[in-house]
């Protein structure tokens, strides 16, 4: 029997990663009643993910910092709802989530959206083969379960997360057959890093990981194909020419592998903010479409809705924590709380946030995927994984007049499946509007924004959403 729970909150925070935890704590410290909701079974998000208790012995400074942040939120009296997947948020700030017990509805006076980001992966030949997994997935397997993505692995893509996942893969016992980074080492990157001494140790450690962990490392190369019939068995790699094109004539094959870990950075997870009608803008180096939020307090274009962390543009955990704290304070004030931290303290937080963002923005710009990722998919390559729609089908639809991700979806079903375009919309936008993916727009999600069991909807209807006006 499904049960329905109902609660009211001064502030509801969606997402229990670094931004959401900081927002929930800051709001609770003003005396606000705070509910924190996350779809995963443990809090911490991706950056602070907590290994299963039964694994033991795998604590690191990072997981300990996450555990402390989670404990602080609980000690501050925040109601934490895990395994709670939000499938509807209504304009009057009622949130409905499915839980293992049934349905949870929260009526909030202010909302902080801290839904984070997910891997952005361009479609390429063979990317649907079992054994091809995202960098985020490989990291979760290693950190949450101590499971390696494969025994002999190729790590490929671009950006600062690649060495991080390489280290996790080594820790889980994988052999790194090759490390394939699209960017070449760049003097400008070192000059940028030189201005942030607090980051030197971290950067040096990551560089050492790549140098010592991988059997071979290729900089300025790209994986063009995952090869295999029932699972990935090999990859093709090719160098990128100075003009950005793929030199397929110089391609090499790396054989006898059982996993390809592909990471091209992350996309903001904007389904809740776009459902609520918040304004968004496109920034390729921050992951694509991101929710517009006031730099000072996270306020979005929709009253009483705030956003913090990666959903406002991919920038990493430190800016997320600072922005989360500022958004939590602002949301509590919005909900009528007056015991907020004094202006000088908030100004200090803003200055730290500015510095943290100034570190990340040039790094993001340097690590933006090369133009060549648009040339990877063949006409027969599946771009929409849910509905098995090929690039050729999307190209044909675009030739007939579909020039947006919405048009491609209505023509071909691409982006209409269970993931609602979270995986493919990035690629489809680049097919629909070559050279200017922003012009293709983004999908406005529909309720339910996540597939939900009918029994949970029924439980919500019985007691939950009937509480509304």
């Amino acid at each position, binding site marked *: 029997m499904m049960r329905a729970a109902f609660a009211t909150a001064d502030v509801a925070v969606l997402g229990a990663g670094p931004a959401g935890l900081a927002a929930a704590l800051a709001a609770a410290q003003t005396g606000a009643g705070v509910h924190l909701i996350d779809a995963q079974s443990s809090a911490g998000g991706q950056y602070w993910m907590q290994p299963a208790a039964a694994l033991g012995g795998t604590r690191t400074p990072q997981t300990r910092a996450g555990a402390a942040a989670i404990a602080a939120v609980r000690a501050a009296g925040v109601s934490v709802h895990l395994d709670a997947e939000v499938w509807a948020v209504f304009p009057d700030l009622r949130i409905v989530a499915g839980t293992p017990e049934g349905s949870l509805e929260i009526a909030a006076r202010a909302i902080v959206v801290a839904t984070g980001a997910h891997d952005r992966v361009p479609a390429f030949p063979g990317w649907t083969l*079992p054994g091809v997994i995202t960098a985020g*997935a490989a990291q979760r397997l290693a950190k949450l379960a101590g499971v390696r993505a494969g025994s002999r692995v190729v790590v490929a893509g671009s950006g600062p997360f690649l060495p991080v996942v390489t280290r996790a893969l080594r820790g889980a016992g994988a052999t790194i057959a090759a490390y394939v980074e699209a960017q070449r080492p760049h003097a400008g990157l070192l000059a940028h890093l030189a201005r942030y001494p607090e980051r030197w140790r971290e950067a040096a450690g990551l560089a050492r990981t790549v140098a010592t962990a991988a059997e071979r490392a290729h900089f300025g190369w790209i994986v063009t194909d995952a090869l295999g019939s029932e699972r990935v068995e090999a990859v093709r790699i090719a160098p990128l020419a100075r003009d950005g094109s793929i030199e397929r004539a110089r391609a090499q094959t790396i054989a006898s592998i059982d996993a390809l870990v592909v990471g091209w950075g992350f996309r903001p997870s904007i389904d809740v903010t776009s459902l609520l009608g918040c304004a968004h803008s496109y920034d390729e180096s921050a992951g694509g479409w991101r929710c517009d939020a006031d730099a000072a307090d996270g306020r979005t274009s929709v009253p009483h809705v705030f956003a913090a962390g990666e959903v406002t543009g991919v920038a990493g955990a430190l800016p997320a924590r600072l922005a989360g704290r500022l958004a939590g304070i602002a949301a509590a004030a919005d909900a009528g709380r007056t015991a907020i931290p004094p202006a000088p303290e908030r100004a200090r937080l803003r200055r730290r946030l500015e510095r943290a963002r100034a570190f990340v923005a040039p790094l993001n710009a340097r690590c933006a995927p090369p133009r060549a990722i648009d040339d990877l998919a063949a006409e027969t390559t599946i771009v929409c994984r849910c509905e*098995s729609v090929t690039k050729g089908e999307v190209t044909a639809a675009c030739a007939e007049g579909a020039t947006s991700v919405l048009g491609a979806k209505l023509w071909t079903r691409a982006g209409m499946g269970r993931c609602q375009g979270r995986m493919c919309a990035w690629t489809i936008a680049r097919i629909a509007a070559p050279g200017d993916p922003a012009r293709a727009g983004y999908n406005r999600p529909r309720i339910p924004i996540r597939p939900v069991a009918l029994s949970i909807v029924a439980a919500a209807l019985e007691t939950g959403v009937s509480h509304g006006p």
Partner: protein
Amino acid sequence: MTATITVDGEPVAAVAGIPLGAVLHARTLALRRTARDDRPRGLFCGMGVCFDCLVTVDGRPGVRACITAVRDGMTVTLG
């Protein structure tokens, strides 16, 4: 804590609380086949976004293995 789950009728030892998707990925990469073109799929995003790791758990179809925690006695059918 160790748990025993059943995957397609076979007992599999696992650690309670870790993602079911991790257990399945370590055992067999392909978790299901697609309806439209009958091709194998496995774990991909690992964080509940892509829906490629759908399996049947205790009779309930369409469960994302990647965000489902292992429980002792769980019965899993691959698609």
